[in-house]
């Protein structure tokens, strides 16, 4: 289906480097649902050295990467993209950052040796390498998504970094099953302005259409002041969501 509605510009950051754990499923979900809503999604892939004006995008996505890749991006953020991305975040661009991408938005990542790799510091979080890998199915409950009552969000986490939030920030949700940001304080992810950082992959968006729609709606409101999305048939997605909850409960840590 070709949409006739407004264009929605999606930026996939470092698709060649930060593409662990099926991250591209999130971009597929954004693009598909935008099409189903009659919008016209356009996806730009942006990698090392390119320096776009991030404020021109409606939705930006960055996934997770392996250590090596993450170091390359850390450098690219410092030298090339960091300030433009930070400006866009303050400007209210919708940004979804998962795992490694989430960590890089914060102040720093402290390795096991105590060395601190700088992040761009636009969100007041910081990450410390942990000894144990936090792996498994996750269910969280969130009240940041518009609509009646709290919503569940499902996914899979696999990280050894433990992320902590600064005083003024609230997590994306409260952990029902799994570890979340650090396995200690019961929080998962962070929402700062329109930037959502989280450890949930799985992929996250396809099984959580409420989250996808939340991001699309915020992007439309930022650009056009309104967002009217007629309901879709989400039977398949809802079934997967419910199945993921059952799976997480059957194999609770």
């Amino acid at each position: 289906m070709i949409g006739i509605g407004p264009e929605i510009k999606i930026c996939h950051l470092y698709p060649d480097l930060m593409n662990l754990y099926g991250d591209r499923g999130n971009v597929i979900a954004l693009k598909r649902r935008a099409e189903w809503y009659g919008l016209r999604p356009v996806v730009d892939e942006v990698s090392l050295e390119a320096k776009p004006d991030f404020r021109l995008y409606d939705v930006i996505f960055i996934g997770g990467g392996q250590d090596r890749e993450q170091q390359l991006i850390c450098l690219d953020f410092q030298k090339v993209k960091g300030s433009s991305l930070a400006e866009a975040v303050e400007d209210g661009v919708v940004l979804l950052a998962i795992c490694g991408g989430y960590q890089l938005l914060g102040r720093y990542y402290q390795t096991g040796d105590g060395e601190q790799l700088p992040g761009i510091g636009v969100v007041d979080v910081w990450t410390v390498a942990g000894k144990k890998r936090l792996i498994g199915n996750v269910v969280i409950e969130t009240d940041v998504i518009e609509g009646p009552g709290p919503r569940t969000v499902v996914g899979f986490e696999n990280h050894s970094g433990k992320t902590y939030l600064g005083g003024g920030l609230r997590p994306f949700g409260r952990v029902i099953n799994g570890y979340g940001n650090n396995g200690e304080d019961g929080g998962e992810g962070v929402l700062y302005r329109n930037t959502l950082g989280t450890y949930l992959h799985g992929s996250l968006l396809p099984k959580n259409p409420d989250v996808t729609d939340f991001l699309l709606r915020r992007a439309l409101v930022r650009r056009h002041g309104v967002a009217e999305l007629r309901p879709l048939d989400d039977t398949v997605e809802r079934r997967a969501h419910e199945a993921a909850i059952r799976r997480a409960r059957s194999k609770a840590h």
Partner: protein
Amino acid sequence: MGGAPPGGEPPSMGLRKLLAIWIAKLAVRVSRVFGRGGSTFPGTLARRVAPGILLTLGVQLPRGVILVTGTNGKTTTARMIAAVLGAAGLRVVHNRSGANLITGVTAAFIAGTDWRGRLRADIGLVECDEATVPRAVGELPVRVMLVTNFFRDQLDRFGELAHTVELVRSGAARLGPDAGLLLNADDPLVAGIGRSVSLPATYYGLEDGRHGVREMAQSREAKHCLGCGEPYEYSRYFYAHLGHYRCPKCGQERPQVDVAATRVDFVDARGLELAVRSPRGAFTVRAALPGLYNAYNVLAATAAGLAAAVEPEAIAAGLAQVTSSFGRMEPISISGRRILIALVKNPAGFNEVVRTILGDPDPIRLVIAINDNDADGKDISWLWDVDFERLAAAGDGIDFIVTSGTRAEDMAVRLKYGGVETNKITVEDDLTAGLARALRETASGQTLYILPTYTAMLEVRRVVAHLGHARPFWQA
């Protein structure tokens, strides 16, 4: 410290070790009585009683051990090597049931002994999980270590791909001075091991340019140079990130190849013919296996045969006997229906299977069974890295797709977002019911593809075996 040296001398077997062997052999019998495969439990038991048991057995092998590791193609390649060694008249001890952890290897070696603890074999052939490589090298007289490729697989078990590569590299670094490496030159991650270990390395690779493409589809395992981080430039890709590559900055490139397939021909839907160039001259081999990815397996087995001093004639004779092993596209007939089953476990392998299915002119009838148990990998995110968009492009060429297994719903979502019409998709969590449904909708003379993950495969096997012998229950 080097690996255990090969001996040939019959060892003086301590009583404790003999006892371990007896206990393990008894355990095998008992578990057979109770109808269980039990391919690793006897090994665990024996190692409890005599921790050095594998070391003691391994040194009896006059020609040492060929160890096969890597992400994809281990089982198929090891089976082909076994056929090649067999054709050369060698007696082989081989952990063939896919028990590729140290306990499975131990069990296989014990199964190959007589009651006095003597190993009745000339050479060992060990298919080895990447994480087990350092341990296996420590306990076995490995003479040849073959590394097929590295793909992302079961990330939740190994953490990250770089870690998996490092496990294999550290194993290679512990090999004895009489050992050699046999490496896939077309995989930069594999070839990198040859550069970092001071042992002689033999490289194999494809050189038939007709099969290469200029653009890589999805997998991006090794995009950046291991030497300097610059993106590699590929003159051609054969299969995912396997191809001919070079770093434009530091010049690190695909190594010179010793054993090359200069020509790969697809004889029919599921046969391969390879023209091989080697230090032992040029020769031709054939195997009844489909797909370019199997050309790598055939070539690897050929190179392993040469490394074990098998004559080219015997290599060709051995490979000619090979048919696809169970679960790797072996056709089965159920009441006139043609059933093809292929194990799926990572994006690269799944993409190849999709390519094969799209090459079949029949309408697409498909069961995809995704489990997320420990042995499958608990994280099913990799499904998003498979190009189901290509499958969806078949449009009305798709008759039906049944999704099943513990993650049937996730698979259905993936297909929907890939662009498959939802009215073509049926979710059936219960695999027996899902298979019955698919068989009901497949007429005699038609083809049905079944694509399960590892533990789902075990279930598919049970159901199919039952159907093969009993009256088909879906007609009842």
